[in-house]
């Protein structure tokens, strides 16, 4: 790896609620993630790790401080521009799979790429099939999303996160709903993706075992990062 290239940089991030009482959720958070890193954020429930992830992923814009993705400042971008940034540069994997039940597996994977609208549909279909192949579920491509198992659904969700070759993949408890075997499969997939494809991963988890095997752990407590 050459000089580490910063994909994500957050500077002096603060977030607070004042309703009904004043609560400081995040306090002066400074994070940066380099290309090819597999980073996990851990901490107890309510420490603000998910809140941080949503801020870093531009879904939550109600904060103070600065956020850069691919050196591009996120502050001041419109809702539409942020949507475009997420579409191009961020892949999401949540605890719940959020597949569209009306669509087939492959259509679910293709959806963000169709939205991006750079390649023709046939090309996107090929890409999607390749992603499904990496995740070992190519045979499910034409099944309805509602007809496959929980572990498979989560793998489809990962394929969907990969489809636009994002700069960074953000995961919120990606193994939270899975049993031991499936968790292991997902972890191995993540590891493989970062190492083989050179992708960057930022994972929020309270699964210490999972976190221990990542490149770097960011531990949080009461809205701060513990060093």
């Amino acid at each position, binding site marked *: 790896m050459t000089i580490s290239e910063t994909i994500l940089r957050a500077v002096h991030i603060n977030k607070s609620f004042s309703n009904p009482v004043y609560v400081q959720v995040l306090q002066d958070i400074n994070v940066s993630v380099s290309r090819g890193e597999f980073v996990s954020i851990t901490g107890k429930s309510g420490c603000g790790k*998910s809140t941080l992830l*949503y801020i870093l*992923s531009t*879904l*939550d814009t109600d904060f103070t401080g600065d956020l850069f993705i691919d050196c591009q400042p996120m502050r001041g971008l419109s*809702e*539409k521009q942020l*949507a*475009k940034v*997420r*579409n*191009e540069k961020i892949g*999401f994997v*949540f*605890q*719940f799979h*959020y*597949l*569209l*039940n*009306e*669509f087939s597996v492959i259509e679910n994977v293709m*959806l*963000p790429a*169709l*939205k*991006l*609208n750079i390649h023709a549909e046939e090309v996107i279909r090929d890409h999607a099939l390749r992603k499904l192949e990496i995740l070992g579920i190519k045979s499910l491509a034409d099944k309805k999303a509602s007809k496959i198992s929980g572990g498979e659904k989560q793998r489809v969700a990962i394929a*969907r996160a990969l489809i636009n070759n994002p700069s960074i993949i953000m995961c*919120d408890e990606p193994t939270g709903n899975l049993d031991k075997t499936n968790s292991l499969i997902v972890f191995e997939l993540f590891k493989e993706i970062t190492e083989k494809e050179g992708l960057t991963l930022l994972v929020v988890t309270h699964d210490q075992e999972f976190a221990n095997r990542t490149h770097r752990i960011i531990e949080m407590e009461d809205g701060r990062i513990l060093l």
Partner: protein
Amino acid sequence: MNIRLLVRIAFSLLLARWKQSLVAAIGVTFSITMFIALLAFMTGLNDLLDGLILNRTPHIRLYNEIKPNNLQPIIQDSIFSKKYNFIRSVKAGNSRQEVYNSQIIITTLRQDKRVQGVAPKITTQVFFNEGKVNITGIINGIDVEAESRLFSFTDYVVEGNAIDLKNVNNSIILGKGLAEKLLANIGDVVQVTTANQQQFSLKVIGYFQSGLVDIDKVQSFATLSTTQKIVGKPSHYITDIQVRLYDLNAAPSIAKEYAQLFETEAEDIQTANAQFETGSFVRSLISYAVGITLLIVAGFGIYNILNMMIYEKMDSIAILKATGFSGRDVNRIFMVIALSIGLFGGVVGLGFGFLFSVLIDQIPFNTASLPTITTYPVNYSLAFYLIGAVFSIVTTWLAGWAPAQKASKVDPVVIIRGK
């Protein structure tokens, strides 16, 4: 923008809830059907009722009114020009009802490009002698051909042939009510006495039924020349010149122009029959009000289904927004859903509306006062279908607007964190 993708997503959401969507669409279909059928029937009825009077009424009628002259001699004399004068009990000095220079006026009118046709007419009051009793009636001296062409005269001759009026000397067509009073059958001869005590025998060759009983009890028709003979006037004697224009709405202004040009009275159809327009207007208004009410109800149906869909599809909206669809995209998806329901329901509704109109058109409708009508009147104007189509799109757009706004404002963080 990738509209095709949004439409694809919209349709999959729509089909996932196709039963509810269908019910919402049926609501639109029902209201558009009723709207079309109601308007077609109401307008058909309007046309019929208006036609009862308007088709037989000249757009402009030129005549001479018996009234005192506005220009009394004292006004014309310069000696009194700066004085006030009061004249009481002024009488009409000229009792002639004749339209002066009628032949020239008719020739001039026929050359006017705005005029569809001209029909001269003589009206005179007579007594029909029935034994010892005299029955008052009116004889209209008409040009049968012009009258048939311009005012559908033949439509209202229920027995006998209108053109016989021209072929048979001294013939008359009696109003149905009048004929019943006189016990006159076709082929019989009736006696008439004019205001000048002249007696005439006229042969009955047909009955006339206008649909208005009061008219049928007094009116009768003869040719111009027969009538001229009855009143003892020469062949240029004409009391009315009836004008039919191409554009009915121009009647008032053209009437004014003619009054000046020909120095006669000129009455336009709008002044003569103002109440009919009011009636038509109110009936149309009621039809539109009912149609729009139905559509608004259908609009609430669409509003409901969309709201339900949004609650059900919160997860889908959240992930769409997380993976790069903007609020505007989500808004469009739901607007596409609303509009497709409206469009589908609307188009089917227009079809059913047409079928319904055809059905109404087949229902027998026989009434003694309307001899030419055998089924319920229906108007197939394209305008109703256009209005119906526009209304269905506008209502569904309005019904979809609020839910679509709501969907576009869904915060994915709230949904995803809530899991």
